[in-house]
């Protein structure tokens, strides 16, 4: 184990005890990147020099006796759809290949406020549309547990970097599973907070009513620490939830006696890998052993989640992505004969196939004559799906399910079959439709590949999720496993 393989809370303690310096931690991460980045390809943009400088600044302040927050001096990787002032933010799209934001996302401001050290910007499916990071407009990222496999997506770069020690923790975004699914594939902890818990200001929008920024970390304690740093009301985001700041670390308790956990039977049905099923069954046993009450429950409208999601998300995306027209920033087709031709050529060349597919789907769903049958109907079904969760969570403190139907699949395995690809988010996307918080935590292994289990909570019950995940982590220890990295 190198420094770069340790979670943030351990490094933070070493830093405070003056056993290591922030610069040493940063160099450890940069060295790991040097060693394996050509295999994982987790990053689109690295900012090593700035990271080292920021680390040295933290060291100076620690020497001066400053009392710094827990994440001070700890390296973080940021998904490349979160705006970083002065640092290229591409959304893994050719259309934004050279876009340098003149402003910081709120979460970046908040990381700066706790003296975090940004290592670089991570690879993703273009505009967060995908489940394997193969839709990156630049190159695919590979899974550190098995380089022939995908890391999941769309936050595949963030998940791979955390798993491989190419960062200590990372930020991702989750619209239908884009944090949890790659976290599951890469054996790390990933949380999608409640819609409105973390500001979206500066997150390049995919589907505004579903998008949420969240942490990808090596363990549950780190998840709480990162949430402490980034969550909370932001007046720049109208959908941000007002309220007092919470200290999420106070939920990190091993005692879950009496906690009621529901298992939605629709999430253990057809298409579920046997190995994954066994992992979930074992997880149930572990939790029951710890004193939790486990019982089956039902989310009757689950079957409609995928079609509902694939109407609402593309509809919003078709509008959100309209601004990439070559007029103000990003790629512009230079050989256009007039402005309409410029729009067409810029967008035809700038966007990849999956993005174009979703723009067309969404445009269609919103078009006159189809709106009621598709978009409006989807909104209504969304309400039913949300009601399912409300009812289940009236009885249970949390729900437990597999994060994904299978462990990480092979590169190229699903890329030519969009529907197959979409199905890899079948257990995650309903949670975005309902706006609920959910966490994926390593629950075991199948053939050497990590498998994630997902806990789903009531709105703003991130604390409950952290508590049950922490208890599970303490009893299983899967979060301390690291991939061999083929070295």
């Amino acid at each position: 184990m190198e420094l770069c393989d340790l979670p943030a809370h351990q490094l933070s303690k070493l830093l405070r005890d003056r056993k290591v310096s922030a610069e040493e931690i940063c160099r450890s991460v940069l060295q790991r990147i040097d060693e394996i980045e050509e295999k994982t390809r987790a990053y689109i943009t690295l900012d090593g020099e700035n990271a080292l400088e920021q680390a040295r600044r933290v060291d100076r302040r620690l020497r001066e006796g400053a009392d710094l927050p827990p994440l001070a001096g700890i390296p973080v990787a940021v998904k490349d759809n979160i705006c970083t002032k002065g640092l290229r933010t591409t959304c893994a799209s050719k259309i934004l290949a050279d876009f340098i934001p003149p402003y910081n996302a709120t979460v970046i401001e908040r990381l700066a406020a706790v003296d975090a050290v940004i290592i670089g910007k991570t690879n993703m499916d273009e505009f967060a549309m995908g489940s394997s990071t193969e839709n990156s407009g630049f190159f695919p990222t590979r899974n550190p547990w098995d380089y022939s496999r995908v890391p999941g997506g769309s936050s595949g770069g963030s998940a791979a970097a955390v798993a491989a020690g190419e960062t200590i923790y990372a930020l991702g975004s989750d619209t239908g599973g884009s944090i949890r699914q790659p976290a599951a594939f890469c054996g790390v902890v990933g949380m999608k907070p409640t819609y409105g818990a973390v500001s979206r200001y500066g997150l390049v929008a995919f589907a505004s009513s579903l998008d949420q920024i969240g942490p990808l970390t090596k363990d549950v304690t780190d998840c709480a620490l990162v949430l402490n740093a980034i969550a909370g009301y932001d007046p720049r985001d109208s959908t941000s939830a007002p309220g007092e700041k919470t200290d999420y670390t106070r939920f990190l308790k091993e005692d879950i006696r009496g906690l009621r956990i529901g298992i939605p039977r629709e999430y253990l049905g057809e298409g579920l890998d046997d190995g994954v099923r066994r992992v979930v069954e074992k997880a149930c046993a572990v939790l029951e052993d710890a004193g939790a009450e486990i019982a089956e429950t039902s989310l009757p409208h689950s079957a409609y989640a995928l079609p509902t999601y694939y109407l609402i998300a593309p509809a919003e995306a078709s509008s959100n992505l309209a601004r990439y027209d070559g007029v103000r920033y990003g790629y512009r087709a230079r050989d256009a004969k007039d402005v309409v031709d410029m729009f067409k050529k810029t967008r035809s060349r700038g966007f990849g196939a999956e993005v174009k597919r979703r723009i067309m789907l969404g445009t269609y769903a919103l078009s006159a004559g189809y709106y009621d049958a598709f978009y409006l109907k989807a909104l209504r079904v969304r309400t039913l799906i949300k009601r399912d969760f409300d009812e289940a969570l009236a009885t249970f403190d949390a729900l437990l399910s597999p994060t994904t139907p299978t462990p990480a699949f092979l590169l190229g395995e699903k890329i030519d079959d969009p529907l197959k690809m979409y199905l890899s988010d079948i257990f995650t996307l309903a949670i975005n439709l309902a706006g609920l918080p959910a966490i994926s935590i390593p629950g075991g292994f199948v053939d050497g590949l990590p498998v994630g289990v997902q806990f789903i909570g009531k709105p703003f019950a991130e604390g409950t999720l952290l508590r049950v995940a922490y208890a599970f982590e303490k009893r299983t220890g899967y979060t301390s496993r690291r991939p061999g990295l083929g070295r």
Partner: protein
Amino acid sequence: MYEAVIGLEVHVELKTRSKIFCSSTTEFGGEPNTHVCPVCLGLPGVLPVVNREVVDYAIRVALALNCQIARFCKFDRKNYYYPDLPKNYQISQYDLPLAQNGYLEIETENGPKRVGITRIHMEEDAGKLVHQGNIATTPYSLVDYNRTGVPLLEIVSEPDLRSPEEARAYLEKLRTIIQYTGVSDCKMEEGSLRCDANVSVRPAGGDALGTKTEIKNMNSFRALHRALAYEIERQIAVLTEGGRVVQETRAWDEDRGVTVSMRSKEEAHDYRYFPDPDLVPLVIDEAWIEKVRTTLPELPDARRKRYMEDFGLSRYDATVLTSSKELGDYFEACVAAYPHPKTVANWVMGELARLLNAHNMDIIASPVAPAQLAALLRLIDDGTISGKIAKTVFEDMFTTRKDPATIVREKGLVQITDVDAIAAVVDEVINANPKSVQDYKAGKEKALGFLVGQVMKATRGKANPALVNKLLKEKLN
């Protein structure tokens, strides 16, 4: 016989300090792309936040136009591609607008008429394209986003208007009311008031509506009137020739004085409206509405009623004086200093209006302050100057901005009321005009007028006219 059916869609720019969804200034002009920020430029990742002042202003207008204000409304995205629209969608309000079912009253030749207001909604303005010459031949165009995100109200009327005159009266009244509320300058030349019209014609007295056209690009009240008159004639001509009016959007060509087809119904945009997921619905409670209501000034109709009842003015005079808030304020300031409303009204609508018009000035820029006009009127009352002299003094006041007393003193215009002095002049005039004296004595009353005139001329208008009359008559009888 045909009658026209007209409805207007009016856009009003609100003069809030900052834009509708960000903190950039709304100030008019400025170097291109200096009144902008990441939000109004639609950079990747930015989010809109509603400016509460915009909602306050919108509620104020809605109240002034007698509308029902929604307790729950939302913002929607109107999707279309145009380079002056940074997000390629406009944040507007679609099926749940801020306010509905209002009205205003216009004066027509058949008396007052109520014109319905269908709805009022809030939206963001677009930027401005700058072409090198003509839009069709320009090699490239530049975009200025200063205006992008400036708050707009769209005010849609019912199709209650029946002539270009009524349409113009409606737009003028709407402008007056909005100016009273203080939320907009409503300057058509600066684009802070813009107007499109829906026009159709039908056999007079019928109920069914004819096929309508939408007329755009009318940049003045005169253009509105001309464009509507042209379009009505055009549609009637089409129908009388046995043709059919095509539903389409047409642009007014000011230079050629015609409307020309822009796009047909089939080419109309599908705006793919849907609720903006970046904004939460707006909940407007009674307290908010009542708070805004207290900021409303007296509106023109109420003010007119007061002028008629309290000041005894005619409906016409009261209408003219309340046609702009500033004019009414000026009038009332004069009346406060000189409590004879009818006399003040005559001067404000007469001499003052004439000179302001001649100098193409607005009442707000009047060189004569209300206190100065009042002082002038008092000089007439106390006999210092005659009403006739007062008019020349007023012209001097207008050009020099001096007080009336100063002008009267400097120019020696004090009225001669000394009986002996006037009698001496009267004697001179009688001696110099035996013919007229004779005529008068023979019963020609008109001769007296001539003699009065001669006395006034000899005194350069300063003799008190009543005294001159009296003395002349005494001496001649």
